[in-house]
């Protein structure tokens, strides 16, 4: 009885849900805007909107579960998650070899998923887990090990071939290394190396990937092929003007001039119908969500959680940046959807799961630094 009295009485409070309300609010705003655009982009196909909403509810549920798991558990599980993810990636490649073709999916009969999505979370977790145990400044050996941990899954994903996801995985890992305190001189040195290595990388790319980069540099070279997407999406956005043509009134999107207008190119529909105002609101929402993530990273109490939080926030931002940049014709066409807005399930689940982890980091606060 006495013991019971010293322990605080359990009472349900919003705190016990472990939700970060500012983040949740921003996410809901972005999701609502996304559904609004999707309704128009799908030519008012209510079925598509309902399917997307169902997925969103599922993903939000997953987010809340992830938020309740305390961060030290994530840290404990990190090597396992990474190992299993890697094994699944290899399994997918072997199955793809047998099936003679590109294979990203693992079919478990009742459920299909892409192991590369797990890696979007597992790679920054693993990099943070590894660098957390190293003292500053990071020496070259640790840097090398961390890079291997990042690039092995990235190369496997690029071979699937899924260049977009591979780039995102690399970005997530590099964010962790950068934040962990790698020397600025090394950052500059590596940037130079990367610039010099670009021509080499060119030879590794698949033909269709090369084609995309060529098309990006000169879209007018290929107006019948990939360049057509960029030309049409620029027309859609440009014709939106300051205030847009109004919801459901975008001619380019509805006359099917704009390809992929519900998935990768959905930002063009936003630009056409809601104009500059709509575009800026969407971008600001993305920025606020990312900044909230970085704020959570700043307040994080351990190195592991800080590195992980910042990396997840940056992955979200850079995905959105690459997608919007591509739709507006300042970045090459890589198949990266606009997070939480584009139609489609898998990437959305991963992003909301990563926000679940962010919420876990922000809400599970410990009073004494005894977890390190």
């Amino acid at each position, binding site marked *: 009885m006495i013991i019971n009295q010293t322990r605080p009485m359990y009472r349900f409070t919003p705190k016990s849900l472990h939700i970060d309300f500012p983040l949740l609010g921003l996410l809901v705003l972005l999701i609502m805007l996304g559904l609004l655009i999707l309704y128009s982009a799908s030519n008012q196909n209510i079925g598509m909107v309902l399917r997307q909403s169902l997925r969103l509810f599922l993903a939000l549920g997953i987010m809340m579960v992830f938020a309740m798991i305390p961060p030290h558990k994530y840290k404990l599980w990190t090597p396992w998650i990474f190992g299993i993810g890697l094994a699944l990636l290899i399994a997918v490649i072997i199955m793809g070899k047998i099936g003679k073709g590109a294979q990203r999916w693992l079919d478990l009969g009742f459920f299909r998923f892409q192991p590369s999505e797990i890696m979007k979370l597992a790679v920054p977790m693993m990099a943070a887990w590894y660098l957390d145990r190293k003292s500053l400044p990071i020496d070259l050996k640790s840097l090398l090990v961390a890079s291997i941990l990042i690039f092995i899954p990235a190369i496997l994903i690029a071979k699937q071939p899924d260049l977009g996801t591979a780039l995102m995985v690399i970005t997530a890992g590099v964010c962790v290394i950068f934040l962990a305190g790698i020397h600025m001189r090394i950052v500059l040195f590596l940037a130079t190396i990367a610039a010099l290595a670009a021509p080499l990388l060119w030879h590794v790319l698949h033909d269709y990937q090369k084609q995309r980069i060529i098309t990006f540099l000169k879209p007018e070279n290929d107006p019948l092929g990939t360049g*057509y997407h960029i030309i049409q999406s620029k027309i859609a956005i440009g014709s939106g003007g300051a205030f847009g043509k109004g919801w459901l009134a975008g001619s380019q999107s509805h006359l099917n001039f704009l390809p992929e207008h519900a998935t990768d190119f959905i930002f063009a529909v936003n630009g056409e119908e809601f104009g500059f105002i709509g575009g800026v609101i969407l971008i600001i929402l993305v920025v606020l969500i*990312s900044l909230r993530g970085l704020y959570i990273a700043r307040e994080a109490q351990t190195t592991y959680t800080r590195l992980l939080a*910042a990396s997840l926030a940056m992955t979200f931002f850079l995905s959105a940046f690459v997608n919007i940049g591509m739709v507006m014709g300042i970045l090459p066409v890589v198949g990266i959807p606009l997070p939480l807005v584009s139609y489609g399930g898998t990437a959305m689940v991963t992003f909301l799961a990563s926000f679940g982890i962010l919420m876990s980091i922000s809400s599970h606060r410990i009073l004494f630094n005894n977890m390190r």
Partner: protein
Amino acid sequence: MRLNKSVNYDRFESHVHGFRLSLLVALIIVLSFILILRLAYLQFSQYKRYATLSLKNQMSIIPIAPSRGIILDKNGVILADNIPVYVLEIVPERVSNLADTLQKLKKLLPSITDDDLESFNHARGRNHSYVSIPVKLKLTQEEVAIFATNQYQFPGVSIKARLMRYYPLAETTSHLLGYVGRINVQELQQVSTTNYRATNFIGKAGIEKYYEDTLHGKVGYHQIETDVSGRTLRVLSKQTPVSGEKIYLTIDSRLQQVAYEALKDKRGAVVAMNVSNGDILAMVSSPSYNPNIFVNGISSKDYQKLATAPDKPLYNRAVRGLYPPASTVKPFVAIAGLEKGFITPSTKIYDPGWYRLPGVTHKYRDWKRTGHGVINLKRAITVSCDTYFYQLGNKMGISAIEDMLMQFGFGQLTHIDLHEEAPGVVPSPSWKRGSKGVHWYPGDTLITSIGQGFMLASPLQLANATASLSQHGRRFRPHLFSHAIQDRGETYDFKPLEEYPIQLKDNAYWGLVAEAMQNVIMSNEGTGYRFGRDTPYTVAAKTGTAQVFSGSQYEKKSYAEIPEALRDHSLFIAFAPVEKPEIAIAVMVENDFVASAVARKVLDAYFQLNQPQEIP
């Protein structure tokens, strides 16, 4: 102590992390600023341009087909040309009731067939609805006039002048050039859909197929502004298509015509080739067909008729027709015997008119029942003595024969620039086990050494091997492509490809076989008497007669009494002039003896056309 260090360290680490985090914040701000600037650029500064493009008018991209490269012979005579024709086309977007319109069109122009409508529907499926799609190719002047007077009833339907493939020499070059036809679904999967967006034709056979990539060119386009009803308002930008390359072949069309005329009404093939670089000078297969009917879209009934005709006119006998080489294989077997040391030039045997394997009663007969008496190798080639080669074959065994015939290129693709080629057969015990499931018998070796039995060779392989013989073992890959001229005027040449040469212990063997082959024509007992001895040039040749049917019932009958389909095939290989060989030729005529006469006509024409220029 440890705790203290840890606290200090943490503070240092947090400081580093804090600084890096601010850098990331800065990065986010900068990148999002770039996005907003770009958005502003598109939606404010470019607003007018894009609004015009999207609101009042629509922008369309109309692909323009490149014109297909023409094909010429070595002297610049056009073999495959593009000629303008009238084509009835529909822009589906501008037709309100497509099915009704097609029905009405069919009533107006009865020449439109169901096949036409089917390929129209195919093409419609893979194009934007604003792209003009052909319904009926090659309208006659009369049909053009009929449609023109009724055009007001058909919005969205128009007559356009298009370029179509035309083969001026028609039947003469059909197997060689192949033909183009409308692209089908399978073919579309093998080419770049972008590059073929405006293309209706693709090479289906022969040179047209083999050099499809070279001949096709690169698609161009018009980026045009159209009003609501689809009329072109103005051209925004234009990318002219890059024409396909002009291909010059090694063929001499005059020689080709002589060869075709010589084979007319017969079934057979002629291949003539330049011995010193592998240039194919003439390649004819007979009977032939008119490739121009394929371009227009052959009806399935006509196609069935061609495909099932007993004469097999679609079949390229020159590269795909496989025949027993018969006695024409003897010079090559002779080289094998000399090289492998089983005989010397002076080895003599006695020929009683038959050969018997030790311990077997069956007699392998010579074509001459009375035999040739005492005979050496040279004479054995000249008179085509079977007995000599029976005993040589038995001495050598099949593997020695197989080895040398493979070196001459039999039993394998020559890799000429045609997809139709067949590899033929050089038999061996393992081949027989694999394909027939039975053992090799010594008798198989005997009949192989006189070119009967299982061995099969194409006329191309025979011409190629004869060329190698004339060049003392130097071998060139036969080819039809001479050079090409690109759209921009750049020329590139074909480099003759030299194959691995045949090297003999003694080069005198080549001379011996050549002399024996010259005697085939010149000697009184030579088998090539039908060729004639009155040529202004020297010839080394070998005749061959492939039995189609061997049976006693016809042996005594006169030639005219034997049904045509059971008459022997005749073969003829030759090179000329003997002193300094220029040309090698192989002729094959089914169920007829005229191969040597055909070869004579072609060689006469060659030397007449290539007379050394007299100095005035």
